[in-house]
């Protein structure tokens, strides 16, 4: 069930476009913001609300890599794996994260704290290697900094 607040926010997005369907990505973002991800149930709710079939909406949802159709941890780590970060040796950062968190790409720590995902270019190539945790960008990274960075997220 969509909450009143979610419906209110989605209504606002719908008011800005010709047809409710046009607001479906915004609606998915709103649901993901409150739940962390988009469950089958949420997908059905949004589909009903904007007048799409669940299959049609899922084809949109699964196209975009930052709409999560599987549960994620409380914090999502996105490691840039594109060219400048590769040249500057991002792989040591990735490997250190694998080891520290005991997970690989696409997995979530047992305590539900972190999900680790690769991501293409974060647009901060002059300060590679870089990663993002939730809304925070970290750049000029070294493996030594990782402990201190991870500690900020509980």
């Amino acid at each position: 069930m969509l909450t009143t607040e979610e419906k209110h926010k989605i209504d606002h997005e719908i008011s800005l476009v010709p047809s409710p369907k046009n607001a479906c990505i915004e609606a998915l973002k709103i649901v993901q913001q409150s739940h962390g991800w988009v469950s089958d149930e949420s997908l059905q709710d949004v589909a009903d609300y904007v007048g799409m079939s669940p299959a049609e909406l899922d084809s949109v949802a699964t196209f975009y890599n930052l709409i999560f159709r599987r549960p994620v941890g409380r914090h999502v780590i996105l490691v840039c794996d594109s060219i400048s970060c590769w040249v500057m040796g991002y792989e040591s950062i990735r490997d250190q994260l694998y080891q520290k968190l005991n997970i690989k790409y696409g997995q979530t720590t047992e305590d539900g704290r972190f999900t680790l995902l690769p991501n293409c270019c974060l647009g901060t190539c002059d300060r590679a290697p870089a990663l993002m945790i939730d809304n925070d960008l970290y750049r000029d990274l070294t493996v030594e900094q990782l402990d201190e960075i991870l500690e900020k997220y509980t």
Partner: protein
Amino acid sequence: MEKPLTQHIVPGRAPLSLKEYEKVGGYQSVRKILKEMSPADVQTLVKDSDLRGRGGAGFNTGLKWSFVPMGPEAAKPKYLVANADEMEPGTFKDRVLLEGNPHQLIEGMIVAAYAIDASISYIFMRWAYKVAAREIIKALDEAYEAGYLGENILGSGFNLDMHLHTGVGRYMCGEETALLNALEGKRANPRAKPPFPQVSGLFGKPTIVNNVETLCCLPHIINNGAEWFKGLSKTGDAGTKLYGISGRVKTPGCWELPMGTTIRELIEEHGGGMQDGYLFKGLLPGGASTDFLVEEHLDLPMDYTAIQAAGSRMGTGTMIILDDQTCPVGFVHNLQHFFAQESCGFCTPCREGLPWVEKILLAIDRGEGKPEHLLTLDFHTKYLGPGNTFCALAPGAMEPLQSALKYFREDFERHIHEHHCPWSKAKVWQPSI
């Protein structure tokens, strides 16, 4: 040396507020066009300035606008979209403008919207630019409050709404017709052209999509004229350019310099030269989807014309350096992984061809390559090239591959003959996947 686009950007300092921006001449171009110029005047001035699209394609901006139907009979509403989806690997120039001076972008968008008589505008920005999003929302509020946006702007009768739309990933969204689909709440597949967006774009209405840097040039062209803008350049392509360098140089970064600054000056003076212990081997001049240039090209001016004549494209003007200690096969493999992953899957050559290319490069990288693999890669650079795919993604992907096969073919062959990557210390025959 004039740096119109970045003159008010100080790294580490918050961007100018509306009041501060007005004090240094901000929004003067809006006052000027609304008082003194018709949309046709603005189009002519911008066409005469030779401003070319800074997103990579380099099409004359005024000419692009001229295909929008004008007059009372034209379909309404018309839309203007700022393409702020900067996702070309190795590119970080629009971030500087978005974070550093959001009012300059808004001002440029008002100019562009007026020129095509658009009444609704969007800034389509990638999700990762969180600081930029915060600053733009703040600047939009200020601009509405001051009457630069909304109805009857400065009493002129011109109306313009402006919204920020942040994306949810996917490189495809940078392609202008795919961007419009994303903005409509659809999968970001590209659209067939014609009809071109100028005639039938967002929600089927006339639409212009311009890059952030392109839009940021507009206030300065309006204020100072076409000849001034052309005079900023060292060569025949007008204006300044935001150039960037990433990779193993001493001081990577982004700088606004006269168009036509040479590659050598960029690397040696602004990038500080190569890091100690690293030698220059090649570079991609303007993002992941441009052809490699090598030593012999270092004295070329970085502009659309000269780089194209050398067989590449200036693209976004943000270059990625390949050094002697980085494996060129690994470099291209990383790029093809990106393109294969970001293909929208709509057309067969791109969907099937790019993963094939990636697999072959993986095999070569691991020392499992066969001599005939190089011919298969050559074959792909032709069949995934221009004219064989629905949009420019796969042809763009083939640019670094075809030029790597040309300039670094020996390095590919060494991988195959020596059965390992000469750049990796361990001579391990790794199992196939």
